[in-house]
């Protein structure tokens, strides 16, 4: 894309050169002033200087006065950018090309006063320019394309695209269009949709359709379409729909500005695009919760990557939002009243769970059930769901006879544990005098804190469990998932649940951590792993991966040899790779796919997941088709499966083998099927291998 833009702008050589000079001035100045280098690298401060430079080079004749002014205006645009950014970034808003518009106005309006600055005539003599750059062949190509009659719509579209760089010819437009298509299928489809909408709207309201290609005015529509449909918002059906709505709005805003600014003889340039986009983004920001039109959470400068990462993160990484809670007991318990249940889980207290123990016949007691101690759950240990501090507890309330309730002391004997500043868990109806903790005491996840009882408003012994945001007994409940558990309903097999809310009537139990697996995958920051493997050419290659923690406290592995980076996270029961950047030829990339997600439990239950499309190698053409369709539907599915296959002993594992699979499907056709294994012993991960078809890559750890 960058190359296409450069090529397009260099079709007007002076414009290109002055753009380059402007950027160099802006970058040099920012570096000298010591602005945030990470921010500079994204170009937000300097791209306005670039467009201003290109604009100046397009409209004015080069000369000494021109270059001095170029320097000054570049600086002005940088100053406006930084100043505007200082205010708008805090709001999470872009300033787009407003600095360019302002700085260009600053030169446009007084330009007639500046006698030594001449308006260029070069735009009239296109051919000479082209000849100077590319000789006869380029002129011929240009003429061929210009003489090509693709139909009015395509011609106007290409001219509109070229107007982004202050040009008005189909060659530049074609270069930009191809660049767009290569850079992003979504950008390209949005540019076409944005343009078509504007074109049809112009015909509909009777304004002159061709005028949309005039200078950079037509570009406004395409840029709004790209910005709203795919850049600031995760591309989706809704974003495409809003693109179609906003383009006509932009067209009104555009006409408004043209008329208004005409009084003071200023061009509108890309002001309408900037205004509409910034307004709309700010409009979207004001929502409490977004169901559709999600504002891009982490800008990766590609709508495809944004979309695929978002889909991945939405499904997989919700765990970052929650403290991993375990079920507050041992063994299998059944949920006798779930969220918003039929009995007492109502309104403010709706997001609570009641647990009892059932036998295989579904009975919760033995004998007559007239006395609380005949109930299986009565007296059973209740444990802390996560680390925390006891903020409230109450003991000494009698356990009721079966069938009786104590509505005066509704919650009975209870404990509230603070897990984070805003997350508290409450356990209620505990057995009289069974509390093992005091207020202010610290508990660890799994510590026994009391026994299940029948105190308070509890006709039959059960354990009441709720999450709340307040430190006292009986506060309003919060919807909050349990990190990992197995769930079995009357009709279904036992399944692994992750960050989910247990369903009424199902039988649930905790998973145990396998210490060997946990030790192997809990890769601590400032440690290194090194693997050797023989590549396809038969060369023995070694890669070193260093584990680091970034400024946001995320862990990643950095491959010394290839520079590839794989982000990971590991809790008590699960190891995840979250994302990958860098060469897909690196061994780290292979490991990323092999150990994409690993259950660190002694359970042999399979773990399934899906990998974002941009992180697997798919044939280019299918990937392109998938990109076009991605905002609407996923044609490509990348399924991941992990399972423990071999273990040497039941209680004391010395050696273990995991098997994983990556399966890429396009529609119904299987494209890739990789089977992978990871071997682990007491030292950690000792080797892994990947089998695709008949080729096997085997990587061995160097100790």
């Amino acid at each position, binding site marked *: 894309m960058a190359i296409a833009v450069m090529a397009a702008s260099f079709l007007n050589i002076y414009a290109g050169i002055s753009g380059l000079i402007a950027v160099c001035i802006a970058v040099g100045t920012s570096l000298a002033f010591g602005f945030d280098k990470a921010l500079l690298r994204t170009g937000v401060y300097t791209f306005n200087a670039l467009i201003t430079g290109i604009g100046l080079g397009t409209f004015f004749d080069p000369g000494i006065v021109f270059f001095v002014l170029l320097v000054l205006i570049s600086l002005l645009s940088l100053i406006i950018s930084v100043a505007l950014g200082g205010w708008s970034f805090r709001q999470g808003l872009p300033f787009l090309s407003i600095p360019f518009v302002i700085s260009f106005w600053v030169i446009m309006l007084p330009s007639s006063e500046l006698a030594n600055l001449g308006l260029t005539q070069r735009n009239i003599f296109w051919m000479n320019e082209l000849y100077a750059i590319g000789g006869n062949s380029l002129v011929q190509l240009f003429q061929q394309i210009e003489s090509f009659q693709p139909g009015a719509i395509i011609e106007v579209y290409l001219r509109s695209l070229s107007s982004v760089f202050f040009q008005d010819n189909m060659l530049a437009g074609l270069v930009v269009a191809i660049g767009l298509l290569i850079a992003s299928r979504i950008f390209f489809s949005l540019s076409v949709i944005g343009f078509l909408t504007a074109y049809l709207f112009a015909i509909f309201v009777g304004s002159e359709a061709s005028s949309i290609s005039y200078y950079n005015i037509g570009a406004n529509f395409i840029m709004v379409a790209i910005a709203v449909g795919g850049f600031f918002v995760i591309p989706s059906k809704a974003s495409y729909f809003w693109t179609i709505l906003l383009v006509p709005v932009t067209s009104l805003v555009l006409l408004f500005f043209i008329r208004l600014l005409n009084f003071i003889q200023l061009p509108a340039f890309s002001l309408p695009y900037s205004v509409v986009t910034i307004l709309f983004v700010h409009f979207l920001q004001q929502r409490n919760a977004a169901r559709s039109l999600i504002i891009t959470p982490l800008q990766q400068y590609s709508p495809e990557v944004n979309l695929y990462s978002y889909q991945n993160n939405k499904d997989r990484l919700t765990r970052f939002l929650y403290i991993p809670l375990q079920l507050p007991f041992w063994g299998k318990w059944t949920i006798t009243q779930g969220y918003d249940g039929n009995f007492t889980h109502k309104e403010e207290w709706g997001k609570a769970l009641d647990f009892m123990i059932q*036998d295989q016949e579904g009975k919760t007691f033995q004998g007559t059930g007239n006395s609380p101690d005949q109930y299986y759950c009565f007296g059973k240990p209740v444990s802390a769901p996560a680390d925390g501090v006891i903020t409230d507890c109450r003991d000494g309330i009698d356990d009721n006879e079966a069938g009786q309730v104590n509505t005066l002391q509704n919650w009975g004997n209870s404990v509230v544990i603070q897990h984070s500043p805003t997350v508290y868990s409450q356990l209620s109806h505990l057995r009289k005098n069974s509390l093992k903790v005091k207020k202010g005491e610290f508990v660890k*996840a799994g510590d026994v804190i009391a026994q299940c009882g029948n105190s308070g408003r509890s006709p039959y012994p059960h354990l009441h469990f709720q999450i709340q945001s307040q430190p006292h007994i009986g506060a309003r409940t919060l919807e909050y998932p349990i990190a990992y558990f197995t769930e079995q309903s009357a009709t279904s097999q036992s399944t692994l649940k992750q960050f989910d809310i247990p369903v009424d009537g199902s039988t649930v139990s*905790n998973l145990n*951590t396998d210490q060997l697996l946990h030790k192997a995958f809990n890769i601590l920051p400032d440690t290194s792993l090194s693997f050797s493997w023989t590549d396809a050419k038969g060369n023995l290659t070694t890669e070193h991966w260093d584990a680091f923690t970034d400024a946001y406290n995320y862990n990643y592995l950095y491959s010394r040899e290839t520079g590839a980076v794989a982000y990971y996270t590991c809790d008590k029961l699960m190891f995840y790779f979250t994302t990958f950047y860098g060469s897909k030829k690196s061994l780290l990339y292979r490991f990323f796919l092999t150990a994409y997600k690993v259950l660190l439990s002694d359970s042999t239950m399979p773990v399934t997941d899906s990998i974002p499309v941009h992180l697997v190698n798919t044939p280019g053409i299918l990937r392109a088709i998938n990109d076009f369709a991605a905002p609407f539907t996923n044609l490509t599915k990348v399924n991941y499966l992990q399972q423990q296959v071999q273990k040497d002993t039941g209680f004391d594992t010395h050696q273990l083998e995991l098997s994983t699979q990556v399966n890429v499907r396009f529609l119904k056709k299987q494209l890739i099927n990789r089977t992978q294994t990871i071997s682990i012993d007491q030292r950690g991960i000792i080797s892994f291998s990947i089998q695709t078809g008949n080729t096997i890559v085997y990587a061995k750890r160097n100790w």
Partner: protein
Amino acid sequence: MEKKRYERPTLRKMNTGLMNKFGTKTENEPLTHIESVAVKGLLKEYGSPLFVLSERQIRRNIRNASRIFNTRYPKVQFAWSYKTNYMDAVCRTFHQEGSWAEVVSGFEYDKALNNGVPGHQIIFNGPDKTDEQLVLAARNNSLIHIDHYDELYSLIRLSNEHKLNPKVAIRVNMDTGIYPKWDRFGFNFENGQAWNALTRIVSSERLELVGLHCHIGTFMLSPNAYATAARNLCELAWSVKERYGKMVHYLDLGGGFPSTNTLKGAYLPGTDTVPSLDQFADAITDVILGYGFRPEELPLLILETGRALIDDAGYLLGTVLATKRLSDGRRATILDFGINSLFTSFWYEHKVSPAQPLGQQTEETVLYGPLCMNIDVVRESIVMPLLEKGNQVVVHQVGAYNMTQWMQFITLRPAIVLIDEENKTHLIRKAETTEYINSQELLPTHLN
């Protein structure tokens, strides 16, 4: 209208004493069906006598036991005690429910392997392990529970000879306040023998200490004894941890939980006196949880429960051969099974029910077996309806030990039938035949 049943006349001694408002009637309801399968049909199809096992009850028992322990302690593993009942069908039912195997001989070890139990899920107990068996068990990563010093030295020698790293535990015996003290198995706790053995194991290069084992007795009626046992094992585990910096992986509390059978000489029936499994579980888990181990280093709790999981799933069906009057006037009933099949009648006062509705009248009788031996007494005194030749009876709670300790003495051993969860019957062991017994015999040529 059904034809009135003929009831033979009976003579009963008048006992003076307080009037009993319930009269002389004894609740001994007939048991006509086992898991909805008619007793009469079973006997007709498979012959009399006949052992019957209920798969549903087996599964119910192990699931209950798992629930009872798993809701009290985070890491629990049951190991099926093969000697209690090593019918393959029974063992495999337990293994399907997640139980490991606990064996006490090479024969049982082979049986476990044949039942598909992975080597590392076999616990090898008992005082009798040959060199070959020890090597095999070590190769299979089985858990070898060492019983005595001679075995310990053999194992050290064998592991050096064969370059093996056997996973071992020691069996510990101790005074838990129970008589008789089972001090003939394992190493004594109180006199320091157990600690010496542990030191010897830890300092050996090849043996890997993985657990501690005890088995304090059988048909234990006191949960407190288990609390003591658990505390002593915890103390040993703690000492090993303190001294050698290594936490054992498991504590094996053995078996010994009682079934609800009534022991001979007990005044009240077992159903009223035997503590529930919950009480035993409380006693054991309270001690281990409260001992001070960190949550992640809590040892796996292994239980080798046998009797309590199988006894009430087994029935013995039989037929009355004859009734007669003894010289002192007592009634005697002769059945077609005796102590040769029902070995546990040495210990228990088994509950015996008629298998068909009989009249209201009852009488006290002795139940004799068919053997021509004076000791062959099934019950010395039991109140039964007026039984006659050809009537059928059901003995309850015979699932444990009978199908392993029965004798081929005078008569042949009967068939065993399993009733599955869909109430279908499966013959799981054929009745023995003369050919089967003779097939093992060899005749010297001069006698031929």
